[in-house]
Each structure stands twice: as structure tokens, then as C-alpha cells.
């Protein structure tokens, strides 16, 4: 909402600085995005008179001007312009002045003569012909009238306004008008709002002789007010009106169009003016569009309208799409002799649907969507007619037409003022509330334990129902000032705050991985079909069940991720391209599967990605084991070959906990790496966090420390390549021996010289012990013999010589 200060002053006595105004409005709930100048970015330019002209001694095309800018001594300024003359009043940019486009003017030496500034063209001041006649002339702008020398150019040409760019919250549609925002501004400044008075214009003749209105759908059009003006004099609107329209960002067109725009800005109500000669029988019909109907709108575009849209029509054809745009066939032109001014209230939700369908939102439509009210519609019409009369733009006919199905009677609500105090934690007397509400034109009186509030027509945001107490509390609160309400701590019940187990476990996972040297990633949830293809996810795989967005940014972000992998690879590729080649990453995030008629399934996943010189399948596995150990479940987890197609065959594995698959890990498939242009090996794991949590170990109980020493032993065996480490470990652990075996660790695997092809040497360490005595040599001998025999019989293992 653009509010020119000059316009504000019409309704409010201005008694503060612009900065203080902005601050006060902020405390009322109105933020100011910026303070604009009518001539943006121009400073240090004043009126000067050329007292003498002389040729530059060293340049044919330059002239030396002696300029009086009202200072003690005249200035010497050099110009290349040819339209200057002695006695001319011109805009002079002084040393340090700022011009359009961010140019700064400084004293310079031009071919041996010092020039203390610059004479300006209109263009250099950002002016157009409309702002000042002659501004677009290719040369220095010559001022037409007498002005005091040294006066800022803004003041001289009447362009010294400042404009507040105020941000409105959607509940205050009434403030999308100069009058509405000034009403709030007056209250914020502690001033009385000078309520505008519209002078009713008595028309001549009988309206029925010229026009009539039928509203067929009063639900979508609760009020349609209109008035006929004949004998139009189409001409440019007066300068003051043009200036105001330009100040709020509108382009002046002609007096009739400008009046409708002016009223739109002033009263916030969109209007339209039809060429009455183009309306068949002068009869306006407000109706739903027919099947297959088309309307060519003011912008020259043919638009297909549908029966759920409301049209303004005459008995033969559509002349406009209600609330959106008028028809080209009834547009005001320089030849228009008579017009019908329309000010109607249309239902916002219907206009919203129409604009969505047409994919076209106009300023007018935006207002209707935010909500207009029927009383203001009529005021807008009266104001437009007053302006027509003031501007002598035509002859006002008869009485206004007013088809009104809306209830425009005053609403009265009863508010529990004690409740208002309770909501705000204040202790305001009801009389004080009445006084406060009065400052924003809400009349109220105290009736017993209630406030009887007369809701002004423009405050459609104040409800009659349950919300009334809260609505009034909000008004009282912001007038009283939130700042004046001292903060308190919550009383009443005491609560034991706690972190849910799920989030606590998430913390544990993250902390464990940070201790493993990993950095945490946050990737977006979006992915695309091409990424799923690049990940080699087969048709029919559940990872193909991606949730699709109806309005994505693009194809590559049209799906919700079904694996964290694509996002992780994106980030890895970015890191590699930025020369980070060694890194461990993890991410905890949700994936979604469209496998449910209601909401999609949401799964929290943990991704790990290791890459760099020192990383391999087993460094990754080690960090996974760290997490499993933290959750006291490592002993119950197994690993077996398996996993998705994005892994390299032979270097991928499934992770099971208590037999259930909880995740997978492995080396990323070279083809997948290639798709992401990743030059080095990546080891990746993805684990279902909820499944992992389901298998975490319970409370740990203390086990007595062993009283007798454990005897460490190493053993190296030669086995076939197909024998797995897990099998050897199990065989050692389960060998039928009488002493306890523990701490079984594989510490070396060797292939090569001395070992037959197809075989490998595996070296294990473990401990032997007994709970009740120190092992004797023969016990150790026996146990070792048994383990060796077990390995030989079960796995065909030979002791390595």
C-alpha cells in the first residue's frame, strides 16, 4: 500500500518525522517496507539562473555558464548543451549531488576550466514529460515558472512528496485504501481522523431512460451500484490527480479512467466505466457465463469463460468478466459520449477461482479476493460521481442504480470485557476500552459486564461469533501497546519437559557419527524421475513409489525423495568439484513412499557417505558398527551380501538386526558415479532409523570383571576364498571346548606368495579363560587342538605353516 505523505495530510494533522511515523505504525501492526521519494534517488539539485554565457577557451562545443544558485558567489559550470540562454532558470546539480541511475556529480576540471557541478536534463532527474513539460527535451530542462534561486528542484516542480510503502496483513482489507490507512495513521499519531464528506450530486433526467441493471446471481454479486453520466468531455485529468496517481504507481490515462483509478486508491474499491452506447438497451445483466462463451477483455485477449464465472453482460453479449476485467467491446474511448460507472461487490472466493482458471490476476481482482464490502461500494460510486462533477467531466443523470441483496445494516456485538482482559493479561477498565476503540472509529458502550460494540461497515474482520472477544482483544491490545504488557512466566500446572525417545536416539546417532569424524548434511527432499533412473532403481521397486507434486519447480524436483542417496550424491559431487576430496558425511532425513491411499508412508532414514583415499567398504562398516555398538545391538546384527542396484556387485551388503533387514551399504556402482560425474569411489549406507531403534538393546547390566587372567592366542589358517570371516568367527566361537573363548578378532587376511590360488590366509586372535581358575597348559593345548579340528572339519581350514 503506497501512502503519499501529501495525501495523508488531507486527513491527519502531521506532527512527527517520517521515521517516527513508521515506528508508530509498526507498533499498530503496520510495517513500512520503505520510504520512497517522489523523485527517487535525486539529491543536491537546486534552481539556478544563468547569468552569463561564455565560450570555453579550449573547446568549441562547450560553454562556461555563470550561475546564481542563491549563494554568496555565482558558480562556474560548464555545459555542452545548446539550448541554454542567459536568464534561463535551470536545475543545477551541485558538487556531491545524486542523479538518476545512481550518478554522483563532482567538481571537475574540464579542459582547463573548473566546473563546480552540472546543469541537468529532465532525463538525468528521472523525469518524464508527464512530470514536467519539456522534461524529455534533449537538452537542459528549462524551468517555465519563476522559483527562488537555490530552492531544491523537488520543491520547485512540486515533486517533493514522500511515499510510505506500507505492508498490510491480509485481515485488514479496509486499509488497502488511503482512507482506511489514514484512519489508522490518525490513531497512531494521536490525531483525530478528518472523515471525508462526499457531496451528493443531484442528477438530471431519469436514469431508467438510459440504463437498467438485473442481477441474476446475488450470491456472487451482493451489491451492484451504477450511475449514468452523459455528455462526457474526455480529456486528461487535472495535474493534481495525475500526480497522485503517479505517486502510487499508476499511469494517468484520461479523466474518466483516472477517476475510477483514483477512487480505487482512495476508497479501495475497484470500479469500472462502460461505454453506454456499447451496452445493448443500456441493460446490464450480471449472470453466470454460458457454456463455451468467450469474452475479449480490455487487454485484447480472447478469454474462454465457464459457467462458474460471473459475467457482466448486456442482453446480447458479455461486456466484462465480473471483478477481473472489462470487455474490449465496451471500453471507454475518446469518442465515448455516455458512460455507466459500476461499483459492485463480488464474492472474493469466486473471483479467486476465476483468476486461477484464467491464470490472470488484475489489481481489481486482487482487491475482490482480499474482500470488499457493499457499503464501501456505494461510497465509491458516490465519490466517483462527485469527482465527475468537480472535474466537469460530464452530465450526471438521475438517481444511482442500486441492486443490493447484501445486509448493510449496522452490526452490533457484545463483548465480554473481563475476557478481553484475561486474554491480554491486562486490567483495563471497560470505559478505557471504549475510549481506545473510539480512536479507530469503533463506537462502543459499556452495558453491564459487556461492551456493546457497533462494528463499522469497513471492519469485516471483526466477527460476530465466538471470535468477537479475541477480535476486540486484538484491537485493544495493539492500541494499548503490546509493549505495555509486562511479560510473565506461565503459571498453573507444572510440567516435566522431556525429549521423546525417537529424538533422543536421533541425537545419539548423530553424536556417534560426529565422533566417527562425519559431517552432517541437510539435503532437500525433492528429486526427479531422471535421478531415480540414474540410481538404476528398477521398475516396480518400492523406491519408484515416489510422491508426486502437482506444482513442482521443475521435472527434476517433481518428486519427494524415496532414498537419501540422490541428494547425498549431489552434495558429494559439489564437494569434489570444489576440491574437497576427503570427507565423511551423514544425513538423517525423511523419505516418503506413495503406498497408502491416505498420507504417504514417512520413513526416517540415516545415510552415511564416505569417500577419500583412506576410505573403503570396511571403514564405512566400522562407523556403522560404532552406531550399533552405541545402541547395544552389535552382537545381534549380521551382515550378508545383498543390496540395491546402485551398489557395485560384490561390494554391497544387507544389515540385519535380530534377523530383520534394517539397512544396506556398499560401494556405489561405477555407472551411478558416472551419472553424477563423481571421479572417486564413494561408500554409502542407508539405514531405516525406526527399524534400527526397534532392535536396540535394553538397559546394560554390570558383569563382574574376570578374576582369572584371559590367555591370548593367535591362529592363522588357510581356507578357500568362499569361506567368510563370519563363518570362521562363528566356528571359533562355537567350537566344543570346555573353556570360554572370547574377543575373537580377524587381524589379517593374506593372499599371494605361499598361499595356493583360490585360497586365502586368515589370522585371528582370541582369548581363552575360565571363570573359576587360571587355565593350565594342558587345558589350553586341548582347547586349541579342538578349535583347529573344528575349523578343519567345518571349513576345510588348514593351519598355516
Amino acid at each position: 500500500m503506497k501512502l503519499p505523505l501529501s495525501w495523508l495530510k488531507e486527513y491527519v494533522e502531521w506532527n512527527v518525522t517520517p521515521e517516527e511515523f513508521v515506528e508508530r505504525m509498526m507498533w499498530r501492526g503496520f510495517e513500512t517496507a520503505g520510504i520512497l521519494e517522489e523523485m527517487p534517488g535525486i539529491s543536491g539539485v537546486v534552481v539556478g539562473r544563468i547569468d552569463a554565457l561564455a565560450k570555453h577557451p579550449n573547446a568549441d562545443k562547450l560553454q562556461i555558464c555563470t550561475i546564481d544558485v542563491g549563494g554568496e558567489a555565482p558558480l562556474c559550470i560548464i555545459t555542452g548543451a545548446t539550448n541554454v540562454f542567459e536568464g534561463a532558470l535551470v536545475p543545477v546539480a551541485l558538487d556531491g549531488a545524486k542523479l538518476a541511475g545512481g550518478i554522483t556529480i563532482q567538481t571537475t576540471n574540464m579542459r582547463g576550466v573548473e566546473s563546480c557541478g552540472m546543469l541537468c536534463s529532465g532525463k538525468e532527474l528521472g523525469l518524464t514529460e508527464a512530470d514536467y513539460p519539456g522534461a524529455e527535451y534533449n537538452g537542459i530542462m528549462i524551468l517555465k515558472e519563476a522559483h527562488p534561486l537555490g530552492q531544491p528542484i523537488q520543491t520547485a516542480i512540486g515533486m517533493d512528496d514522500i511515499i510510505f510503502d506500507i505492508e498490510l496483513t491480509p485481515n485488514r482489507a479496509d486499509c488497502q485504501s488511503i482512507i482506511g490507512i489514514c484512519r489508522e495513521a490518525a490513531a497512531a499519531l494521536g490525531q483525530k481522523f478528518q472523515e471525508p464528506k462526499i457531496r451528493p450530486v443531484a442528477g438530471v433526467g431519469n436514469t431508467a431512460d438510459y440504463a437498467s441493471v438485473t442481477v441474476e446471481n446475488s450470491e456472487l454479486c451482493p451489491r451492484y451500484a451504477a450511475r449514468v453520466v452523459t455528455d462526457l468531455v474526455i480529456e486528461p485529468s487535472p495535474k493534481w490527480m495525475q500526480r497522485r496517481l503517479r505517486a502510487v504507481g499508476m499511469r494517468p490515462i484520461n479523466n474518466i479512467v483516472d477517476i475510477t483509478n483514483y477512487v480505487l486508491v482512495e476508497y479501495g474499491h475497484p470500479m469500472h466505466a462502460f461505454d453506454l452506447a456499447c451496452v445493448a438497451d443500456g441493460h446490464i445483466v450480471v449472470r453466470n457465463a454460458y457454456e463455451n462463451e468467450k469474452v475479449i477483455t480490455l487487454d485484447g485477449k480472447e478469454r474462454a469463460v465457464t459457467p462458474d464465472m460471473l459475467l457482466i453482460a448486456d442482453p446480447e453479449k458479455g461486456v466484462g468478466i465480473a471483478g477481473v476485467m472489462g470487455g474490449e467491446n465496451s471500453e471507454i474511448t475518446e469518442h465515448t459520449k455516455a458512460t455507466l460507472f459500476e461499483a459492485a461487490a463480488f464474492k472474493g472466493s469466486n473471483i479467486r477461482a476465476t483468476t486461477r482458471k484464467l491464470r490472470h490476476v488484475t489489481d481489481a481482482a486482487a482487491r475482490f479476493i482480499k474482500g470488499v464490502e457493499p457499503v464501501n461500494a456505494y461510497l465509491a460510486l458516490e465519490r466517483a460521481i462527485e469527482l465527475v462533477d468537480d472535474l466537469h467531466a460530464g452530465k450526471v443523470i438521475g438517481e444511482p442504480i442500486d441492486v443490493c441483496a447484501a445486509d448493510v445494516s449496522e452490526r452490533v456485538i457484545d463483548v465480554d470485557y473481563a475476557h478481553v482482559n484475561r486474554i491480554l493479561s491486562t486490567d483495563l477498565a471497560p470505559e478505557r476500552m471504549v475510549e481506545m476503540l473510539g480512536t479507530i472509529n469503533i463506537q462502543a458502550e459499556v452495558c453491564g459486564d459487556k461492551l456493546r460494540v457497533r462494528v463499522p461497515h469497513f471492519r469485516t474482520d471483526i466477527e460476530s461469533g465466538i471470535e468477537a472477544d479475541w477480535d476486540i482483544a486484538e484491537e485493544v491490545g495493539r492500541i494499548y501497546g503490546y509493549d505495555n504488557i509486562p511479560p510473565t512466566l506461565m503459571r498453573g500446572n507444572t510440567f516435566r519437559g522431556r525429549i521423546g525417545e525417537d529424538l533422543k536416539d536421533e541425537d545419539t546417532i548423530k553424536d556417534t557419527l560426529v565422533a566417527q569424524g562425519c559431517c552432517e548434511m541437510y539435503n532437500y527432499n525433492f528429486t526427479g524421475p531422471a535421478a531415480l533412473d540414474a540410481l538404476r532403481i528398477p521398475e516396480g521397486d518400492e523406491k519408484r513409489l515416489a510422491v508426486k507434486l502437482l506444482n513442482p519447480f521443475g521435472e527434476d524436483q517433481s518428486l519427494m525423495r524415496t532414498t537419501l542417496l540422490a541428494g547425498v550424491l549431489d552434495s558429494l559431487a559439489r564437494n569434489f568439484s570444489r576440491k574437497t576430496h576427503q570427507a565423511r558425511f551423514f544425513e538423517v532425513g525423511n523419505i516418503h513412499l506413495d503406498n497408502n491411499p491416505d498420507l504417504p508412508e514417512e520413513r526416517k532414514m540415516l545415510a552415511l557417505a564416505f569417500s577419500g583415499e583412506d576410505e573403503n567398504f570396511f571403514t564405512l562398516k566400522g562407523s556403522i558398527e560404532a552406531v550399533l555398538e552405541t545402541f547395544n545391538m552389535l552382537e545381534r546384527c549380521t551382515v550378508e551380501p545383498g543390496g540395491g542396484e546402485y551398489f557395485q556387485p560384490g561390494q554391497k551388503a544387507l544389515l540385519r538386526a535380530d534377523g530383520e533387514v534394517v539397512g544396506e551399504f556398499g560401494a556405489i556402482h561405477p555407472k551411478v558415479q558416472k551419472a553424477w560425474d563423481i571421479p572417486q569411489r564413494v561408500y554409502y549406507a542407508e539405514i531405516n532409523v525406526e527399524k534400527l531403534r526397534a532392535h536396540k538393546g535394553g538397559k546394560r547390566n554390570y558383569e563382574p570383571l574376570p578374576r582369572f587372567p584371559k590367555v591370548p592366542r593367535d591362529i592363522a589358517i588357510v581356507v578357500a576364498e568362499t569361506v567368510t570371516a563370519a563363518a570362521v568367527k562363528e566356528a571359533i566361537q562355537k567350537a566344543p571346548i570346555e573353556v570360554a573363548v572370547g574377543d575373537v578378532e580377524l587381524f589379517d587376511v593374506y593372499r599371494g606368495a605361499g598361499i595356493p590360488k583360490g585360497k586365502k590366509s586368515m589370522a585371528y586372535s582370541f582369548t581363552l579363560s575360565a571363570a573359576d581358575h587360571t587355565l593350565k597348559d594342558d587345558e589350553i593345548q586341548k582347547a586349541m587342538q579342538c578349535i583347529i579340528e573344528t575349523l578343519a572339519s567345518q571349513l576345510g581350514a588348514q593351519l598355516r605353516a
Partner: protein
Amino acid sequence: MDEALQRIKQETLARLKEVREEKELEALNVSVLGRNGALTEILRGMGKLDKEQRAKLGQASNAVKKELEEAIGARREEIAEMMLERRFAEEALDVTEPGKRRLPAGHLHPMTKTYREIRDALIGMGFTTFGGPEIEYDDYNFTKLNLPLDHPARDMQDTFYVNDRVVLRTHTSPCEARALLNVKPPFRLVMPGRVFRVDEVDASHSPVFMQMEGFVVDREITLADLKGTLDTFVHAVFGEEVRTRFRPSYFPFTEPSAEVDISCSICGGKGCRVCKGTGWIEILGCGVTNPHELENCGLDPREWKAIAFGIGVDRVTSLKYGITDIRLEYENDARFLRQF
């Protein structure tokens, strides 16, 4: 004899001063006090003397023996000390050489750090964590929160749609509806999670970001309580010196509504690029819960009151760490992550 004794003593003491090594010392020890040592020889020769002389010489030689034993013992300790010094010199390190780690340091994402800080501050005030899905019913995301289908404020939030009744949640507020429908009041909940808006990515916008919703339902709870709660939270996260500003605003699900600004932590309130010269930065929206929301979720708004606030975790993170481009928080550049 006596003379010989004195000579041995003088010689030994003199040689002792020269001895530098443990081995030399022990050799000297043996050559004087050992079984065939000089002193032992003298004692051995005592048999030839008469009783009186023997006693006298015995006394003298014992005194010399004791004296020498003590001197050798002292020298032994000195040499041990010297040996240690020598070892220390040999083993001295350049302590400024870099430390060696088996693993590089890992780092939590700054957003996780912020989230934990906010969460822990609220837990301390009796809040418990609660959650809801990222893909949510339109009904919970909007309608139940007093944003019916044709409400103009729906345009405030550009929504990603899955279908006409399912959306990517635009805020964590649908968790409020889920809490009201599933948790018996009174309660204090903190509801963290990702939210989504149709915002093109730039330095201050991201289509995916993280919010934390605070929601309190009790019989008596007021705007002043909301102010107190948020002041406490801000001071816990940003420090006691930071000031807050509570500005009237509008949200469909709260009334009265407010936006909370904190004094700019980057310039200390003097005005800078980050706070756009105002000295203040908006960090959250809040308010007293709108009675329609309570009613829509089956609670009588005359019996129960609620306050709610939604904190932008990304924003708070940016402010805490002086991050001027929100895109960095989702690029996962290791050089960025390793700073936290």
C-alpha cells in the same frame, strides 16, 4: 698403613669426580671396595699387625670405607640424574608439531546445533517434544487452523500440493491440530520439523526450511505468558543482553498475533546490512491461539486457552553464526560444515 689408607681415599675421591658413566663408577667401586679391591687388600694385611695397631687401623679403615661408600653412592645418584637429563634431552619434542588423530573431527550441521539449543531451552520450561508428518492433510495444515479453502490468507503461503487434500506442510502448525486431537490438555509441546513453501531459492529464501512450533494449552494462559516464554527462550539462545520487540501482526491461527524481533546480534542494534539498518531482526511469529482453531479441534475456547509460536530455525541459525546466505545451509560444502 695409615698412609696407604689415606692415599686410597684421596685417589678414589679424586677419580670419583672424573667418573661420568655408571659402568666406570661400578668399576671404580669394585677396584676399591670389591673382594680384591685396594681397601680390602689393606684390611687383609691387618692380620700381621698387633692387636692395638689392628684395632686402630680397623677403625680408620672402616671410617674410610664408610666415607667412600657414601661418596660413591652420592656419585651414583648424580650419574643417574645426569643419565636421565641426557635422555630427556634426546627425547625432547617439538611440541608445536600438529597433533595426530585417527579420525578427523566430525561436525553437526549448524542447524542441528541451533535446534538442540532451542529445544533444550524449551524443555527447561516444561515443554515436551511432539511431531507430525511432513506430508500433511490440507485439513490440518489449513482448515482446522482457521484457514478455510477460500480464506485470503491462504495466499500468504505458497503451497506445494500432492493432491487436492494433501500438501507438503507449509508450517509446523498442523502439529497443533494433531496435538489438540490426540493429547489430553493441559500440555506444553515443542514440535520441530521441516516445512515447505513454493519459494525460489535465493540468499534468504529456501523452499525447504526448518521450523519449531511451541504450543501451550492450559486453562489460564495469556499474551503476557507468551511474551515471558519467548523472552526466556531468546535469552537462552541469544544471550541475556539481547532485547526483544513484540509487534502486532496477523496470523489466521492466532489472535492477537505478534511478530517478535530481536536486537540485531550482528551490529548490536546499531543498524547493519543484515538488519537492513533497523537494528532489529524478525525471528518468529506467535500469538494467542484463535478460538476457531480450538473449536475445530474439539476444545471449548471458553474453557481452554492456548498460545503458540513458530520459530524459524534456519533464520535463528543464520543470526547465531552470522551466515548471510541461507543456501549454504543446504549445499553441504564440507568447508562450510567444518566451521561448526
